[in-house]
């Protein structure tokens, strides 16, 4: 069946599609065939790896939560409010997607670091220092992940249109109730997809984290940072950690999709 369907597809689409699949899958196969399967478990049941796993899970889920908390209102504003300079605003929202993560980290440091634009006040007024803390790592991950959530949800809001929401706002108590009882349930799928994307981005984040929050076991060293370190000292362990990264990502993405995206 599959073969027949594939054969019917036009070649100019089929060939690049196959190339794309190869491009995405071959590196993974390369990784898996280098994995030290016999010692995999013993390499992963290692204090440093377990610590990094815990930090990674805390950071990525907190970041995804922040994306939901801040990104959902932002997506709604972008989709429903006539903003001045809409293109500029949208570009600013998307910027972290194209910014090299290391630059993002440096920018965060200049803004929220102890000597940064805002950070110096946080430090002197509240005694809050963000760099080199788990909170700083979460912030860096949220910075890079937020655009993925916002764009996904915003395009769903735009596609859905205002009619339903406005009708509900007239009939129901008000715009806030309409948002909560009509709009949000109707874009549930997009919110799930946005959560999955932003979680994945946060989970894999490396450059912004190491630049803004540094690297300390149990506090700021996430799995990607642990992998980076291991690549230099113990490549076999690095591959083992990568397999773990892959498994956790796949697991969470499948779970999120299963939970949110199936109709």
């Amino acid at each position, binding site marked *: 069946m599959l073969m027949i369907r594939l054969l019917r597809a*036009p*070649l*100019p689409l089929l*060939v*690049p599609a196959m*190339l794309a699949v190869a491009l995405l899958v071959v590196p993974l196969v390369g990784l898996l065939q280098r994995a030290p399967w016999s010692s995999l478990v013993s390499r992963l049941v290692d204090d440093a790896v377990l610590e990094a796993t815990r930090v990674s899970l805390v950071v990525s889920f907190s970041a995804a939560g922040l994306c939901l908390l801040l990104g959902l209102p932002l997506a709604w504003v972008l989709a429903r409010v006539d903003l001045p300079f809409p293109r500029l605003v949208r570009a600013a929202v998307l910027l972290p997607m194209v910014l090299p993560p290391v630059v993002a980290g440096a920018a965060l*440091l200049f803004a929220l*670091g*102890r*000597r940064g634009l805002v950070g110096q006040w946080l430090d002197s007024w509240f005694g809050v*220092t963000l*760099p*080199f803390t788990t909170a700083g790592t979460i912030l860096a991950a949220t910075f890079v992940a937020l655009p993925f959530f916002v764009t996904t949800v915003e395009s769903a809001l735009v596609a859905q249109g205002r009619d339903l929401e406005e009708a509900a706002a007239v009939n129901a108590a008000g715009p806030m109730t309409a948002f909560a009882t009509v709009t949000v349930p109707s874009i549930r799928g997009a919110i799930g997809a946005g959560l999955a994307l932003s979680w994945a981005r946060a989970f894999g984040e490396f450059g912004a984290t*190491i*630049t803004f*929050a*540094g*690297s*300390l*076991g149990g*506090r*700021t*060293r996430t799995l990607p940072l642990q992998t*980076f*370190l291991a*690549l*230099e*000292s113990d*490549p076999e362990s690095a591959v083992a950690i990568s397999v773990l990264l892959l498994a956790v990502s796949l697991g969470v993405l499948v779970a999120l999709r299963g939970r949110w995206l199936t109709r």
Partner: protein
Amino acid sequence: MPRAMQKVMPLLALAWVLPACSSDNGETLIFAASSLAAATDNIDTALQAEGDVSPPEWVLAGSSRLIAQVRDGARPDIIVTADTSQLDEILDLGYVVVDEPRIANRLVLAVADGNPAQINSLDDLGLDAPLIGLCAPEVPCGATALRVADEFGVTLRPDTAEPNVRALAHKLANGELDAGLVYATDAASLGLQTISDTRLEGTDGCANPAVTSYGIAALASPSEVGEPHPATPVDRYLPLEPLQQAGFELGLC
């Protein structure tokens, strides 16, 4: 899509891939430990003035990162690591360890401008309040810091372990960290304030745990089968004078 396009596309793909494989522009490629960043400008200027060889292309990263890249197929003409031990790993890849020139570096206690955390000695690196930075133990400056702590019985309570000494030095320079152990050359080139601690300054050369000796290796010339022989004249690309000007110590070990 026209049928002709179908035939051309693989060729187009090839045309994109090929130049990436042969980007060799004839320049000598040197992989150097991050700490060499303090000297590359000096060296380039000296080489230009001399006119003997043209300035090389520098790739700077943590020593262990460089070794990992060579292990994975990168082939620099010369590689300089911030300690001598790691070079053994690449001997079977056609590299010859070069004995000369011998340069060394020394860890110093650097603090943020104005020393806001009032760090007075190595012992203060064990305090909880100040933000302390070290290099990751995987890179020589981190390994050297651990050796220093071990030898002098100092407790270290770092808030971050940076992937290379330059990253650490810059975080001290912009005041995000209160104190850290960086090389004398980094402190000098970034104008970092340093705190003197006699334990780090002992003049007993290599015997001081704060001193690390650099390893240099060059690709062996393929023509000289049997007795390996570097193909690149290392000493011409790494003249000692500009290195010394940048704060590297000579002939210690």
